[in-house]
């Protein structure tokens, strides 16, 4: 039995200080037993001389300078791992929360992971069909990618995440299994419940591992929640050879927990009070997405974050955008206009898309149609802002055509049902049909040959007629 330290030197926020400590390791875990028999977990955040400063995951309420016994474990924070993780629910600190008892570990994994060597990575190229037109065509999700959803409070990001999980053909034609790792950070009970119910209804619950740190759980635990989830994901991906989709929500709550913790340590703040290392910290999570060369299995991340005040320049979405490989931005205006999913096309982007689409992946004309749709929709915005100044009647004929294109693009392409699962062929054909609403000369991003093969004004007219009938 190793040494136990009675009492504490001081307590501040979620930090405790022990003195006359010998042989404590930086970053190791400690067990803190209270006089009433309850137990807490701490991690060494700093060592100085014979003092050790520990962060306590469950919070320091009820701790006094005399009622504790602390014991160092000599190991970093670890997570028991086994194939039996699937279907289980854990707390944000990785302890079983479903009453099914402890996991029989096949091994333990350090939750901080280790950086993946860039030369060991395989560049992601395999397209994941989500069945959502705007994503598949314009910001294609690739296996091994990290593609966050930038949302705002009250927008339908949760619904969209569930739809993606239900429809994503992530393991198609690879013969591997597909599973979801779900990390909830600081979300409400109702939201967590919504995800659980949705997973159950779609019959994927047996293939989901859930880590729940809810809004009323301690913030220090929130900091380790995504790390536990990603450790589980990496294990399932690289050692059980599954294709894992990690849904992490809400990254803003995570960053705020980090800020609160940082300020309690008295660190110098950077922008908006967030610690200067927020970028490195977020990167240590997001960079755990990927594929290892020569190993079957992949980790794909779909982090969700709510932009405070819908501000995309807020440090959390801003730094996230710098690390992730693109972003899917939701827009309040579209949501209010009845568009679901309310994906704002122009600021959205998938960086890995260019190498994962086209012949052999999706279809040869994919790049052409998506470039042209982006460009045309950008012109729609110009025409709209002009119309709001000089009135729609004063617009040139071409600008009016763009307005019409914009309307049907939002009605037919962006909008789709919660259970509507469109194949990539359907999506691309629909894109061409909509572009055919515009005169050929306005489609300057496409090669003439490609354009001639797909330009079809009759289909466009038919589509318009159908929508008019539908809407009465």
């Amino acid at each position, binding site marked *: 039995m190793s040494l136990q330290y009675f009492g504490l030197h001081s307590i501040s926020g979620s930090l405790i200080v022990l003195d006359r400590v010998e*042989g*404590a*390791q*930086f*970053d*190791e875990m400690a067990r803190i037993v209270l006089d009433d028999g309850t137990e807490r977990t701490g991690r060494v955040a*700093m*060592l*100085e*001389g*014979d003092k050790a400063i520990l962060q306590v995951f469950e919070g320091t309420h009820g701790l006094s300078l005399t009622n504790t016994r602390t014991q160092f474990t000599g190991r*970093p924070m670890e997570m028991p791992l086994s194939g039996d993780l699937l279907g289980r629910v854990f707390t944000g600190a990785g302890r079983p929360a479903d009453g099914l008892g402890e996991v029989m570990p096949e091994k333990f994994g350090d939750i901080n*992971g*280790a*950086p*993946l*060597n*860039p*030369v060991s990575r395989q*560049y*992601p190229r395999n397209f994941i069909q989500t069945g959502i037109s705007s994503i598949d065509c314009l910001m294609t999700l690739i296996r*091994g990618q990290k593609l966050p959803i930038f949302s705002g409070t009250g927008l339908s990001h949760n619904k969209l995440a569930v739809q993606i999980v239900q429809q994503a053909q992530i393991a198609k034609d690879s013969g591997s299994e597909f599973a979801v790792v779900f990390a909830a950070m600081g979300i409400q009970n109702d939201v967590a419940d919504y995800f659980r119910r949705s997973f159950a209804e779609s019959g994927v619950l047996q293939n989901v591992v859930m880590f729940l740190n809810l809004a009323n759980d301690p913030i220090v635990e929130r900091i380790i929640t995504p790390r536990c989830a990603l450790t589980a994901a990496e294990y399932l991906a690289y050692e059980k050879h599954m294709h894992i989709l990690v849904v992490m929500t809400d990254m803003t709550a995570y960053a705020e927990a980090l800020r609160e913790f940082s300020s309690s340590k008295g*660190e*110098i703040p*950077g*922008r908006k009070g967030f610690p*200067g*290392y927020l*970028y*490195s910290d977020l*990167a*240590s999570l997001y960079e*755990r997405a*990927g594929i*290892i*060369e020569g*190993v079957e299995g992949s980790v794909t991340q779909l982090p969700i974050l709510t932009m405070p005040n819908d501000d995309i*320049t807020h440090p959390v979405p*801003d730094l996230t*955008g710098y*690390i992730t490989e*693109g*972003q899917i931005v939701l827009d309040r205006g579209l949501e209010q206009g009845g568009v679901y999913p309310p994906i704002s096309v*122009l*600021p959205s*982007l998938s*960086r890995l898309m*260019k190498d994962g689409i086209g012949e052999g992946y999706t279809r040869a004309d994919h*790049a052409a149609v998506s*470039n042209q749709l982006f*460009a045309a929709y*950008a012109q729609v915005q110009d025409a709209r*802002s*002009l119309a709001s*100044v*000089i009135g729609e009647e*004063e617009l040139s004929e071409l600008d009016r055509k763009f307005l019409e294109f914009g309307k049907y693009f939002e009605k037919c392409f962006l909008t789709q049902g919660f259970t509507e699962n469109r194949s990539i062929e359907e999506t691309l054909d629909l894109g061409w049909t909509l572009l055919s609403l515009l005169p050929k*000369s306005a489609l*300057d*991003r496409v090669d003439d040959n490609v354009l001639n093969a797909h330009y079809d004004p009759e289909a466009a007219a038919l589509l318009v007629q159908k929508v008019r009938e539908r809407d009465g």
Partner: protein
Amino acid sequence: MMQQPVIYSVNGPVVKVRNTNVFAMMEMVYVGKRRLIGEVIGLTDLETTIQVYESTSGLQTGEPVEPTGAPMSVTLGPGIMTNIFDGIERPLRALEHASGAFIGDGLDVPILDTEKEYDVDVKVKAGTMLQPGEAYASCPETSAILHLCMVPPNLSGKVVYAAKSGKYRINDEIIRLEDADGAVHSLTLCQKWPIRRARPAAKRLAPSRPMITGQRVLDTLFPIARGGTAAIPGGFGTGKTMTQHQIAKWCDADIIVYIGCGERGNEMTQVLEEFTALTDPRTGKSLMERTVLIANTSNMPVAAREASIYTGITLAEYYRDMGYHIAIMADSTSRWAEALREISGRLEEMPAEEGYPAYLPSRLSEFYERTGAYETLNGREGSVTVIGAVSPQGSDFSEPVTQNTKRFVRCFWGLDKALAYARHYPAINWTMSYSEYMDDLAAYYEREVDPKFNAYRTELSALLKEEQTLMDIVRLIGSDVLPEDQKLVIETARLIRVGFLQQNAYHKEDTYVPLQKQFLMMKLILHFHHKAKALLAEHVDLKAIRESGVPDLIVKVKYDIPNSRPEQFGELTQQIDGTLDALRGRKKEVL
């Protein structure tokens, strides 16, 4: 006997040692039983502060700290090209071999391949006097690069032994040199140099030749000189990395040093994959043969990220001394500044703006001032050009890193979110960007491309500027109120934007465009403008000009005329003239 120094405190990557005086500033040290690599960054009579380049998890107080007596250095020698290193020049392929796909700690791997044999041509005999920087041997490092082994810049003397030409490994002795004090130095194929000290050169040369990138907006409007500095600031998704990749692939530098500083792992994998597959148009060999990658991705230790740009520029200076022209891509200098901020925070230094340390500007200028075209110690001419990406927080160009960088670079290629959203690539904003090398390079363009080049460029910029002014009016009251000749300016500016500034990196002909074709494209657009203006004066309707098909032809020139067939511009100009002349009869009804 001095007591062995031991760890007093650990706080993230910062370790402190008390009551010792064995360390020197910037000395490299081994920390703890696992011998993690660290560097001394602070000294007081009480405490020595060390930043550690590897994960400090598991360190204990009381573990030993071992001095090495040498500053943080890189090993310079054959084997650098085609390699991929982390921020402190540890070869990532060897690390993969040692610890698998995930990078472990305290790994001791040789920097350069010690077993590989090179065909060494020894150029000196016993008795030869060698000056600092003089080459004593050479060997083909890759099929594209001939490596020169040079006397270290701080050494000179008489050769007392020289090996015969033949096959040698990097640590084999090639010559022995006796200096003025009679000390004998054994020189091999490699040498060491501290990363934070610039390698000396004989003379700095004025910038006189552009680094040609094949990117129209850069070469024509905002050129960079060989040995120059440029910053590419832009919010996420505006194409910083894409622009750097394009430059790295196509620019006419001899060697590319690509520093992935705190960026995405997948991006480095992509560079590695793409550059290996691509052929260099000048040598016909794989691009990787003349490339070295420094990859310290965002999840690798932050202290090594801080070191990575110094490692990169030291490697570049070494090859410059052999007479090569090197282009450094640093992606992104903001991540480096953040690493500086993070370490400064751990040291509890007084922060200046937004938590960045007050020495941010001086560190930035130190880095950018290591660039330039030089006459080397051995009389060759070489240059180091730096193109640094900047990632401003919140796309706000007034933040400290962008602003301070702007003070020390002479080219500013500002990326614009609005252009990127409209998928106008490269999204370099032509009103915000500038190049201070324009005057230095004017003579080159006149001599090598065309005497009219500079005049045309001025006219092109003026048209874009005028369009911007006119668009302000159009946005308020619509385009109908403008007179015809101003509408023509808007039309021509559209041709410039779509037909000239937009460049398709994925198109075979358009991804790289030689200067001659850039000039001819510019000339064609201006020719159209003058011709159309003359027609308007004769009361030909602008609408007729617009619908004549000529603008479409001009926009598609970039795809339709291959880079290798500049003579086709003559035919096309004739065809356009014919079409436009035919409009003369159809005069506008004058009311």
